[in-house]
């Protein structure tokens, strides 16, 4: 996926980012993203992803012959891609201030139109800080169980051999945060390690 994604709306809790056009392989749900511009490096987790026409009053009409793949239909109708766009919703879960990773909300939103990238494995592990990144993440209503589970899984994978200890530490952090919601805790942890 070589398309550039940029911040199109931002607050200190969340930002929206969009590709210049439609992409069939955007950043995944729960993936940790980085905005490396502005005074602070801002990190967030994808909580939503949407593709559709730029103009809601002009909905996409189904095209293509029976048995034709989506890619083939797109290739046969290149004008359609110009009218479509993929946008993402991102919940902010931490920032880096003068090289210090902090799993808390940044003092200011990321700059509009700043490029959005996938966070590196090292960045993911630093920001996740043994599960503390779950505090700002869970504070965001958009971060549902699937998002939280996917985010934890993603960081565990990035941690490599330290993945299991991270899972346990993040799980304990989650248990503290969700002590009033044991059933939610259970369902998230079941989703983390099915």
């Amino acid at each position: 996926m070589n398309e550039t994604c940029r911040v199109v709306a931002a607050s200190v809790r969340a930002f929206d980012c969009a590709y210049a056009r439609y992409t069939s392989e955007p950043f995944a749900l729960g993936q940790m993203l980085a905005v490396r511009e502005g005074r602070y490096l801002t990190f967030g987790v994808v909580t939503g992803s949407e593709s559709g026409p730029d103009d809601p009053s002009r909905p996409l009409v189904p095209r293509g012959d029976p048995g034709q793949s989506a890619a083939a239909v797109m290739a046969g109708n290149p004008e359609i891609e110009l009218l479509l766009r993929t946008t993402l919703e991102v919940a902010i879960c931490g920032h880096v201030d003068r090289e210090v990773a902090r799993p808390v909300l940044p003092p200011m939103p990321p700059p509009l139109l700043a490029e959005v990238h996938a966070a590196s494995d090292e960045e993911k592990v630093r920001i996740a800080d043994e599960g503390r990144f779950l505090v700002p993440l869970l504070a965001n209503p958009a971060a549902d169980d699937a998002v939280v589970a996917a985010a934890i899984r993603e960081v565990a994978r990035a941690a490599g051999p330290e993945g299991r200890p991270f899972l346990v530490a993040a799980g304990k952090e989650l248990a503290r945060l969700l002590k009033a919601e044991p059933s939610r805790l259970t369902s998230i942890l079941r989703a983390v390690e099915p």
Partner: protein
Amino acid sequence: MSDTNTDPARPLGVVVGGSLTKGLEVRLDPGQTAQLGQYAKTEVEGGLSLLGMVTDITLKSVDSGPTVWPPGEADTPLLREVLQDTGVYTALAVDPYLQLGENGEEPARARRLPSHFSAVHPADQDTLDRAFATDGPSIPVGAPLGMDELEVGVDFERLFERSAGVFGKSGTGKSVLVLHLLDAMLTRSAAAPTNSERTVALVFDMHNDYGWEMKFQGPTTSRLRSLKQRHATDAELYTLESGAARSDGQILIGTRDIQPDDLEVLRETLDLSDLAIDAAHACRRRFGPGWIDEILADEPSSAVVDKLWRREPPEGDVNWSQVGAQMGYPGSLESLRRRMERLTRREFVRTEGSQFGDVIEHIVRSLQGGKSVIVQFGRFGNDLTSYMLVANMLSRRIWERYRDRTERSQEREAPNRLVIVIEEAHKFVDRSLAGQSIFGQIARELRKFNVTLLVIDQRPSQIDPEVLSQIGTKFTLQLDSDNDVDALVGNVAGRSGLRQVIAALESKRQALVFGHALPMPVVVQTPEATNADSARASLRARLGLPEREETSPAAALFGAPAPPGDGP
């Protein structure tokens, strides 16, 4: 638990609640383990350390969630792992006992509480040394639970200045522990400059454990050198059997030596009724010191008849029924006669004479001369009547000698300290006998006459509570009955915790030691039964004595051999 954390640098957990009277609640850190009886320390304000003992371990949940929605068998291991120490956790109950200062102040009873979230660590040797520091020598009693490399000692002087007890069910290691204590006593006493400074033991050795050798079931050693082998010149061995090997003398009792008071403790074993005891007193009053010989005769002697019917003797031959009726004990005298016949059938009881005076004289001379005396019962060890008769008679008379000497003497002439060692103590000092038994009296009088007890027993609940309360230091091995445990912890501070600790003791070589000689209770792995010289060297070091080279009997007689090449 063998993997109990004893690394003082690694915290066991943090204080999350508690009180001085009910103990501290410590939340165990993830991955940590602890066990009942383990020592733990924490810091309190003013640079003080608080030393306590783990007296309970409980599983708790933060709220009802994890217990309402517990992870099932099919759940991922992660869920269980996460809930540990978050939704659920392990809590330690730690009873704080001592407050330790940094600058060598005396340990004091814990009077302050640590703040919330104070780290709790396993105690280290330095802390234990400060807590159990003694002014004089101490006897090592083993390693605190889970701290195999550490060692705790009890204050030698305080241990024997009041009565002590070793309690535990059969096979828990009572005898080996007692041998260890007596070995320490004799080792220390041998180094005392004068006899009056020596502490000596009078051991009533029911099962032939403390004389020449102790036989026991152990992993390596089946015979342990006992006191006579270890302290040949400081211990004397008496037996009830004639011709016993290695004996320094035989205990003989003449029928004239037995007083009605001596029969009081035999009520149960001889099945003597109150009336039979009264009859014995009446016989002693009427017939004099030879009363037993008189009533053992087939027919009443003329002397008996004369004493009972001074003016009007009955016509014809007088029989014992008539004597009993005349004395006011028609059936009881017959009953007493039968029991006296049974009693005097024993090899060591001699009729028509007094034998005991010489024995007593000899034993007292040995004891006050600084030697310990072991009375071995040989084949009479399984005969409780013999054991109780001899132990009671000897102890009563020796105690009277000590009492007389103490009352007559100036302080500098007071007799040395005597510790009387009795087994099956509850038979001597149960609720009905404690008033009459000499042992009840010795326990109650504390150290007034320089005589104390070391009691060994399996059923402490049967011992008179007043006597038990006078036992200063208690070594408690595993006990089965709740009544026995309750009797021992009695009104001791923190008794509910101690009860839990005793209940969790292992079946062998694990003891809770508490009372007069220790500043706080301690659960120890008691010393192993061994003949090893290294153990003896360690004991001497702990007792504050220099290492002594063992002298072989040949070397003692002929001197040490000259080193090679040192000849003419």
